[in-house]
């Protein structure tokens, strides 16, 4: 009803106690700033993890060869060697929506060129692999489907391997000896950085899986099969079809466990982002605590203010203020402190995360929603913590308030 004049009264009261108002708002400024900065850091980390997951490739299904139990000893995934090259070909042939399949074998070994040598990971893949992983070459060319069919002695290498063996020299066309087999380097991959597990993804040699199986690793089974689906809508259906196809090919009777494991990239992404979501939540919660502490600061000062201004409240009531006018006045004071503090806190929080990004090299991501939530929360803190003192003021008896010393 008399909001506008009451608003003026509240603002004048805050201006009468400038230092106190600033210090009270400071609690909220720090609280909101901390929430914005912390959630920004958490979201930045989450975005980074998501980007790394996306670098695994879009709509990818991973099929791992299963574990077997032999004499009571269970091997891990990939231990049994249940996946055959024919399985991969069957998937390529029979599952609709498949746009790329890469048979994968993995090993680690010493590689050498000239007088340099390096211990690295060897990946045997099909020519589709670079598309599936969305991993373009920085230089040179990938090996071809023809190289895979002929098990040619060609490979591409990651940035780390290239630097370790060749330094600043151009590795393209050079010979890399892997288990004493000379391979010609056709290309160098774009650097991909660390994986979500912290593995250097650029410390790698990739060659046709046929060459790897025949000339480097030996064996006839695959560790896993990477399958890429064209349409994300079909991912789930394709995964089911792959499972039933492989069960059929492996003669697994109904009710028996699969001898392989199928994961899609979304599941892996969910697991990884869950971690960073928990981190964001934790950081936000810790910062939220400081916001609550700031709110208690407001309540404290408002209670002091009500006591100190008891006579003023009495005078206001004597000249005709309703209880609701007094309530509104003190509530406006509290909400003004908290929301102005909130606005300044938002600016400080954005500034702090920009500084962290610039100097500590932490990725931060400020979302509009986190700003809006922080502001609304700070206003709510004002209402929540301002209400009790305001109600106390409004409930004062004018006669006793006037007599208060």
């Amino acid at each position, binding site marked *: 009803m*008399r909001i506008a*004049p*009451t608003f*003026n*009264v509240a603002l*004048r009261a805050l201006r*009468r106690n400038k230092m106190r108002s600033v210090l009270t708002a400071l609690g909220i400024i720090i609280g909101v700033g901390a929430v914005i900065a912390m959630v920004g850091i958490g979201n930045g980390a989450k975005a980074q993890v998501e980007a790394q997951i996306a670098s695994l490739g879009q709509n990818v299904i991973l099929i791992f060869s299963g574990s077997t139990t032999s004499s009571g000893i269970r091997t891990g995934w990939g231990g049994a060697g249940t996946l055959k090259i024919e399985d991969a070909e069957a998937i390529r042939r029979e599952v609709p929506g498949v746009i790329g399949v890469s048979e994968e074998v993995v090993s680690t070994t010493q590689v050498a060129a000239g007088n340099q040598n390096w211990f690295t990971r060897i990946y045997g893949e099909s020519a589709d692999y670079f598309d599936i992983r969305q991993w373009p070459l920085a230089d040179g060319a990938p090996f071809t489907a023809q190289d895979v069919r002929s098990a040619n002695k060609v490979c591409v290498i990651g940035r780390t391997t290239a630097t370790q063996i060749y330094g600043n020299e151009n590795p393209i066309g050079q010979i890399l000896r892997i288990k004493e087999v000379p391979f010609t380097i056709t290309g160098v991959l774009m650097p991909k950085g660390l994986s979500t597990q912290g593995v250097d993804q650029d410390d790698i040699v990739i060659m046709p899986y046929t060459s790897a199986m025949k000339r480097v690793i030996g064996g006839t089974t695959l560790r896993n099969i990477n399958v890429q689906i064209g349409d994300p809508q079909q991912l789930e259906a394709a995964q089911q079809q792959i499972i039933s196809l492989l069960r059929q090919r492996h003669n697994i009777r109904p009710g028996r466990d699969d001898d392989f494991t199928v994961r899609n990239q979304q599941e892996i992404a969910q697991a990884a982002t869950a971690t960073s979501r928990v981190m964001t939540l934790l950081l936000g919660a810790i910062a939220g605590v400081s916001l609550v502490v700031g709110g208690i600061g407001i309540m404290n000062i408002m209670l002091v203010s009500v006591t100190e201004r008891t*006579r*003023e409240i*009495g*005078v*206001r*009531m*004597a*000249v*005709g*203020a*309703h*209880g*609701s*006018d007094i309530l509104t006045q003190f509530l406006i004071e509290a909400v003004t402190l908290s929301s102005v503090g909130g606005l300044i806190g938002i600016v400080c929080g954005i500034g702090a995360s920009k500084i962290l990004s610039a100097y500590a090299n932490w990725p931060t991501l400020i979302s509009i929603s986190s700003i809006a939530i922080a502001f609304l929360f700070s206003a709510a803190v004002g209402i929540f913590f301002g209400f009790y003192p305001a109600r106390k003021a409004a409930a004062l008896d*004018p*006669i006793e308030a*006037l007599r208060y010393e």
Partner: protein
Amino acid sequence: MNNGAIVSLIDVGKTYRTGEMEVLAVRGVSLEIKRGEFVALMGASGSGKSTLMNILGCLDRPTTGHYLLDGADVSGLDRDQLADIRNRKIGFVFQNFNLLPRTSARENVELPLVYSAQRLTNAELRERADRVLASVGLAGREDHHPSQLSGGQQQRVAIARALINEPEVLLADEPTGNLDSRTSVEIMAIFQQLNERGITVIMVTHEPDIAAYAKRNVMMRDGVILDDHVVPRRLNATAQLQNGRTRPQGAPNEESPSIRDPNENCTNV
């Protein structure tokens, strides 16, 4: 009913309850005050005069009886309704002035208008406050804070605040209790001038020489009216100030210092 009476108390009683004890502060008071009267309510502390004053000022409600203010029964009104009555019909002047600290005289005077039903622009507020301040002799002091004003000046700001809503009744609770004698006479002069203009003044005091400026004295003791009489030889504060006499002749309060120097203007508390 409305035979020129602005205030009618009909068998008003007030009981305070403190734990098991019941204290009868006012027991069956009937009092009628006509428009344009200047009444001094007197009595020792504990006589019930403050309680009666709170009831008259609509700050408190009687436990029994009826209070008719300007012909309307206000004894049954709730908190907010009483607040509106106080805002429209009653102006308060307190012993300790009760001005808002660190707030200019003008803003102090504007205070009742903030809670008034009439909506004024800031310019109108300001103009009205300045006019009332000028009428109590404080032109040019509008921007002074209470700490920059003497006691008498502070009390005049309080009177201006009481007058801003053009009330029917001016209620003063020991208005000179914190002032020296010359300043007291100045305040009385303002009250008498306001009374001349038709404002009803009801003033609580325990000083007989202050009560002598009123037209009528009501004495209370133990919650009842002991005596109610018209003041026979009423003092004229304005005339005294002009004659340079600040202490009424024959006033019983002999030990109070009297300031006789007409050039003496300092009115600090």
